[in-house]
């Protein structure tokens, strides 16, 4: 039997909250060979272990946390840990990635992966102190906001500030379907509702302390490669822009090209964007910079504002948050955007989904579908920052009108009979790029296994210099980008590293770190295998072509103004082309020959 990668621990920690059983397992070599780790290995375990048709908020769902083989080595920006689960928001396979320090700490504690299953009768938190793992009572923490809860946990465990805590807030406890899991206070497993799954299991937090070490296969060569990579980051304009302005550096370009989602995707240009661009943000609100573990870029921006006289201080804002809580709600003042972000951060909600859900409600209000009596007297007009803040708080508490919206935009729109204004795919709200202005993103949103998530294949960078409106030929680009993202996510790199780390460089870092020698061709095959595994999970749950779709607005209405004016999307043609390049049939189901080629025939269910 081959040996596990040098830079891996080879161990999986399994915690069953029903039986309180805590056990360790070896991770077989083939998991690393076929899926690398992170997102890929998570998808493999979820597909293998979850029965068909599991209710996402029942004790049968699992949270599969998986680190990557480069985490804990010198590799730059290697800090992302994934959680894989069946989503309560979409009922599909779902996966969220979290940066910060929690993932590396888990690995230093001796585990590549952690599977949480079952459901505790009473609220508990998990304490992983290297090899000693225990469940602790958490009734006194239930209901607490995230900063308080994570500080309490650290205090209880010996006032050790370096303990890393991933926890949920009241939103997760109340099964808010947009709830996230927050690590280190400011880093989230954001999209898809992992926080609600954790809440349904009565698990408040996972605290980790790791004092172990990570080895590298060829440390001398690794050190010299990493030194040259640091220099490349220093000289890279895109990386430099990230260092200075965080992800908000993208705002100006996307807005000027006319595909920045504005007023619930009814427009592609936000006139208030000028107040929110990177240099303005830096001048007006940023107080310092922050980084995740081992990252030389440091895109995190600590910001401070005063909202109605009370201080708001948080790490953020990043581009998607500014887009969905800002432009998409027509709000252009930092005070309201940051206050709403703080509510999401403290209660534990995905800022993107919350922003998209509020903008949906705003459009319903403006169109007269709902009125003041429905919204608990909140004047839900686009641009009303106070309404944004009030509604975010109501959603967090499931209070009044917020209770309906906490179910997510899909269910809320069905109850209000306003499906045309719910901008989601498979239940997950879109990111802040209007796909009519960048057609690869249309295919990305429609075919993403976890719903309309942009980072499954962010094709903007490749499309903007070329013909971003072309539909033909985009399937190949989307497939290629999806594969590259599957690799980045499975190795444990932050996607921002791609500016400098090509697949070649990632492969070299993997080899020098872990000792795994995988050809470039095989790397691409691994990426493709991951996409197919994710697809097979969804097909088992009854998803197929009919679900690979976009809101009607994009298919039937054109953007009216700006540099993307006149464009809508012919999705069906793009889908045909995409299925063909993927080796899937007309219904979007992988052909048996494709599964055989990828050595995953055992998961076929045709």
């Amino acid at each position: 039997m081959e040996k596990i990668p040098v830079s891996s621990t080879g161990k999986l920690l399994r915690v069953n909250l029903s039986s309180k059983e805590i056990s360790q397992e070896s991770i077989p070599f083939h998991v690393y060979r076929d899926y690398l780790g992170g997102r890929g290995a998570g998808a493999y375990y979820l597909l293998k272990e979850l029965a068909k048709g599991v209710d996402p908020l029942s004790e049968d769902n699992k949270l599969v946390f998986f680190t990557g083989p480069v985490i804990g080595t010198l590799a730059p920006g290697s800090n992302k840990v994934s959680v894989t689960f069946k989503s309560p928001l979409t009922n599909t396979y779902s996966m969220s990635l979290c940066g910060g320090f929690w993932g590396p700490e888990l690995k230093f504690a001796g585990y590549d992966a952690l599977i949480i299953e079952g459901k505790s009768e009473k609220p508990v938190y998990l304490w992983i102190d290297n090899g000693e793992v225990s469940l602790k009572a958490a009734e006194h923490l239930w209901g607490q906001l995230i900063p308080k809860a994570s500080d309490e946990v650290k205090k209880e465990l010996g006032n050790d500030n370096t303990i890393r805590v991933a926890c949920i807030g009241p939103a997760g406890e109340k099964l808010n379907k947009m709830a996230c899991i927050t690590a280190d206070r400011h880093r989230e497993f954001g999209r898809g509702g992992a926080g609600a799954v954790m809440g349904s299991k009565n698990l408040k937090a996972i605290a980790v302390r790791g004092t172990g070490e990570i080895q590298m296969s060829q440390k001398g060569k690794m050190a010299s490669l990493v030194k040259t990579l640091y220099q490349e980051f220093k000289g890279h304009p895109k990386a430099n822009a990230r260092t200075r302005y965080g992800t908000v550096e993208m705002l100006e370009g996307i807005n000027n090209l006319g595909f920045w989602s504005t007023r619930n995707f009814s427009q592609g240009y936000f006139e208030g964007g000028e107040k929110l661009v990177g240099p303005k943000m830096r001048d007006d609100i940023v107080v310092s910079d922050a980084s995740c573990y081992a990252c030389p870029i440091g895109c995190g921006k600590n910001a401070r504002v005063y909202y109605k006289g009370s201080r708001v201080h948080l790490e953020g804002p990043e581009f998607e948050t500014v887009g969905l809580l800002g432009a998409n709600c027509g709000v252009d003042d930092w005070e309201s955007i940051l206050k709403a972000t703080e509510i999401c951060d403290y209660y534990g909600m995905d800022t993107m989904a919350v922003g998209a859900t509020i903008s949906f409600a705003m459009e319903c209000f403006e169109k007269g579908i709902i009125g003041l009596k429905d919204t608990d007297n909140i004047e839900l007009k686009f641009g009303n920052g106070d309404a944004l803040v009030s509604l975010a708080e109501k959603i967090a508490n499931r209070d009044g009108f917020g209770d309906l919206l906490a179910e997510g935009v899909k269910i809320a729109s069905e109850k209000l009979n306003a499906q045309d204004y719910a901008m989601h795919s498979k239940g997950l709200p879109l990111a802040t790029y209007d796909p009519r202005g960048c057609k690869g993103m249309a295919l990305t949103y429609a075919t993403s296994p976890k719903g309309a998530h942009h980072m499954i294949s962010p094709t903007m960078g490749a499309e903007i210099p070329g013909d971003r409106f072309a539909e033909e030929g985009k399937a190949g680009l989307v497939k290629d980008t999806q594969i590259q993202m599957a690799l980045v996510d499975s190795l444990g790199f932050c996607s921002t590293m791609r500016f400098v780390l090509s697949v070649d460089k990632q492969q070299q870092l993997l080899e020098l770190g872990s000792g795994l020698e995988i050809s470039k061709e095989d790397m691409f095959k691994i990426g493709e295998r991951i996409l197919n595994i994710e697809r097979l999970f969804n097909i088992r749950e009854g998803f197929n072509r009919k679900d690979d779709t976009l809101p009607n607005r994009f298919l039937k209405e054109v953007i009216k103004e700006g540099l993307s004016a006149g464009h809508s999307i012919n999705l069906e043609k793009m889908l045909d082309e995409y299925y063909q390049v993927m080796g899937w049939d007309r219904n979007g189901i992988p052909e048996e020959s494709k599964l055989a080629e990828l050595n995953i025939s055992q998961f076929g269910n045709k």
Partner: protein
Amino acid sequence: MMRNKVLAVDYHKCIGCRICEQWCSLSHHGVISPVKARVKVHRIEETGANIPVICTQCNPAPCVSICPENALSRDLKTGAVRVNDDLCVACRKCMNACPNGAISLDTSGETVLICDLCKGKPQCVAQCPTNSLTYVLPEIVGREQRTRIARCFEKGGRE
């Protein structure tokens, strides 16, 4: 009169990436392990401040003075404190005496970890992406901070 350089830190520039910790543990132990690093970045989560805790090679050094086993001495070439692992009994008196909190106990529990300035080529400084850590003559320490403070005065306000 020694003309040794010292480690200096400008915590305003630190982003908390802990790359310094990685290179420190690699150069001394050949592995990546934050607890084996002699430099440690402490993040205050409420404010997001990152404070790298470093050895300032005090002179006279309380750690050297207090060591009952004479395990600590001064490297004359670099001015760095040297730990003789054979003599160290891990009594931790030096840890308590250190005004910076820059000394830690090794994972073995048998000896202490003190910055040795990497024989005059500190790896933490060499790889710091923001130049938050520098290795300079003592009289140079703090010039950049002074410039920043002067600019604040010029603006007539607080930072």
